[in-house]
């Protein structure tokens, strides 16, 4: 449901841009037939209804997806409005308020979005209910209307003439209208029906109900109603002479009602902007051909520029697509470059980018490096998150770099939006993750400990010793003694194996397969120092010892000597094979 809501939100934002464009165009095209203005509003409707669109370089929409659904799941929520100034104003606030705290399961943004979705649906329900009730009440009031002729009815409850009904539209008039007034009014309402306005207006209102939260759309609807009336007037008086037009505007005035309600169904005669309409009628001149032409061209341009979405960023280099994740390792003091090249065309605009990483106490440098002369524009960061802004970067080719001189790092970068040509801002979120490294070094520490433990006994020349282990459980613990460093206990199944190699044949010489518990001191810099190496006693004590030492269900796994043995055996075999074939090669090259 949240995805639907976000989709609607994004569509209404893009439609909002189009509405602004239409409003501007409307002011400029005052002389043009209002028919064309109505078509422009149709474009807005299309934008609201169609979830997809063509991409085009001519698009003037700042961003097709301002609020990405990913925002609910990412560690660093941001929005892409497509306007750099707006982005840099809003995103820091969003990051500040909505970044999910590490370790907390509930993402605040998810909760807010859920609430917003519910509110949205409730708004729609309320408006639908209101519309339905109004329609039924109106129907009931004109129930006793008397048929005049064809589909024209009269009722004492009608103050101002209108059209009601979508499938079988009826014209409702008040009693006691003069012949002349009736002629004009009937002509007007019949023109409405011919232009199918009794379909368009409810359709527009229905769209308004769905997207009720966007104030620009309310304005669009009001203007649409106005333009529909004006277009209808134009059509009616097109064939009337000058004097008849004066009479028509007199009728307009007589029937004018000062109603400020926004109703969907009745196309009331005097409802909208009477002053404007009278002015329009009296000043009406058949528009010159070139005026119509200009208006049509303007309309088409607006359609192309605002119905199409901004083109996906052109990548100058590199073989990735937006959303890909990269991971690679950094050796200390090594610099990693974000794959694609960036070409900046324009000097002026400040660049902004966002980077998040963990652990947060890591000091990281990142920024842009110019390809040609290696000048760096960098930001230093400690604290897990950085929003960098670089000003006055001259045009040219750049690479994005990330480095940390402190430790081995593995990091991943996800591209959120990246524009290469032009001076638009780019955002990317990356995480520098140390956990892989930690895991690797833990494994390494275990391997080292196992090999060390088994080292003494009779290793002869040409024998290769290796180990493989499967971690069943880990337990973090507080400081073991006055050391003040934390400890970690690993419960694993350890296979220790020795091999010999003769005449191209691999043979196992000895080994052991034992559940083992290793306790390490963990230093601040992430190093593991072995503190205790525990194995169960033999014979009848074996099972009890394991059950006592190993936590939870890992004891069961430890006692199951079939579960991991194949895997570990294979691993050791491979290690041995690699070792001996390397030796073989070395021997050959001697």
């Amino acid at each position, binding site marked *: 449901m949240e995805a639907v809501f976000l989709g609607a939100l994004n569509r209404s934002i893009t439609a909002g841009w189009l509405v602004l464009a239409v409003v501007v165009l409307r002011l400029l095209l005052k002389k043009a037939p209002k028919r064309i203005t109505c078509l422009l509003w149709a474009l807005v409707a299309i934008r609201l209804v169609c979830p997809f669109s063509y991409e085009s370089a001519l698009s003037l929409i700042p961003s097709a997806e301002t609020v990405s659904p990913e925002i609910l799941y990412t560690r660093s929520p941001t929005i892409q409005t497509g306007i750099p100034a707006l982005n840099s104003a809003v995103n820091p606030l969003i990051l500040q308020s909505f970044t999910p705290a590490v370790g907390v399961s509930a993402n605040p943004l998810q909760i807010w979005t859920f609430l917003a979705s519910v509110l949205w649906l409730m708004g729609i329900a309320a408006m639908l209910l209101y519309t339905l009730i109004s329609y039924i009440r109106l129907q009931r009031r004109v129930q*006793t209307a008397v048929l005049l002729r064809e589909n024209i*009815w009269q009722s004492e409850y009608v103050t101002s003439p209108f059209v009601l009904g979508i499938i079988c539209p009826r014209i409702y008039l008040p009693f006691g209208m003069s012949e002349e007034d009736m002629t004009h009014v009937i002509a007007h309402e019949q023109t409405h029906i011919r232009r199918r306005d009794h379909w368009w207006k409810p359709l527009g209102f229905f769209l308004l109900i769905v997207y009720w939260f966007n104030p620009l759309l309310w304005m669009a609807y009001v203007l649409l109603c106005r333009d529909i009336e004006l277009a209808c007037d134009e059509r009616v008086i097109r064939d009337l002479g000058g004097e008849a037009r004066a009479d028509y505007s007199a009728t307009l005035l007589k029937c004018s009602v000062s109603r400020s309600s926004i109703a969907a169904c009745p196309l009331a005669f005097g409802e909208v902007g009477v002053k404007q309409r009278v002015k329009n009628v009296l000043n009406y001149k058949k528009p010159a051909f070139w005026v119509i032409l200009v208006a049509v061209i303007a309309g088409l341009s607006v359609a192309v520029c605002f119905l199409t979405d901004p083109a996906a960023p052109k990548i100058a280099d590199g073989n990735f697509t937006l959303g890909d994740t990269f991971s690679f390792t950094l050796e200390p003091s090594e610099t990693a470059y974000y794959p694609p090249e960036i070409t900046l065309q324009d000097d002026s605009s400040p660049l902004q980018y966002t980077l998040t990483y963990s652990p947060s106490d890591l000091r990281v440098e990142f920024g842009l490096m110019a390809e040609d002369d290696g000048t760096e524009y960098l930001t230093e960061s400690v604290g897990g998150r950085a929003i960098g802004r670089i000003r006055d970067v001259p045009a040219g080719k750049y690479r994005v770099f990330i480095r940390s001189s402190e430790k081995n790092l593995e990091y991943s970068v996800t591209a959120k939006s990246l524009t290469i040509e032009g001076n638009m801002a780019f955002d990317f979120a990356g995480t520098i993750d140390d956990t892989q490294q930690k895991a690797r070094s833990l494994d390494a520490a275990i391997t080292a400990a196992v090999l060390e433990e088994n080292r003494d006994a009779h290793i002869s020349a040409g024998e290769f010793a290796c180990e493989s282990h499967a971690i069943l459980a880990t337990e973090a613990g507080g400081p073991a003694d006055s050391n003040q460093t934390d400890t970690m206990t690993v419960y694993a199944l350890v296979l220790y194996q020795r091999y010999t190699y003769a005449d191209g044949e691999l043979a196992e010489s000895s080994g052991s397969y034992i559940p083992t518990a290793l306790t390490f001191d963990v230093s601040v810099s992430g190093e593991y120092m072995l503190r205790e190496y525990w194995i169960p006693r033999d014979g009848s004590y074996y099972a009890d010892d394991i059950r006592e030492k190993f936590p939870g269900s890992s004891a069961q796994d430890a006692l199951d000597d079939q579960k991991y043995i194949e895997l570990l055996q294979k691993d050791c075999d491979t290690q041995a094979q690699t070792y001996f074939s390397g030796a073989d090669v070395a021997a050959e090259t001697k």
Partner: protein
Amino acid sequence: MEMPKIFESEYRFCLILWNHEPIKSTELVKLCQEQLGWKPTTTYTVIKRLSERGVVKNEKTVVTSLVSKDEVQAAEIDELVEKKFEGSMPAFLAAFAKHQKLSQEDVDAVQGMIDQYREG
């Protein structure tokens, strides 16, 4: 007598009733359909409403009126004179004569009415 209020469309209904009463409700429905374009439910609703107001009577599906056309017209004029001419009938008639074009026959008819009024 307090004249119950009759709205314009209801008045058209009453015209039909006055011309055909007493009349079976089903036939009345048919006439209203032809002349007014009303659905049967509408006609029945109006019959019910007017009988509540004391304008018509519906006994065993036969509909009759409780007020006559004359009475209704007279009441309308009274109300009009009261509201718009401060209760002065002469003022109303003067305005009427000034505004409407009366033919010779109309003038004679009115004169005859006045004479009759004087005598009886």
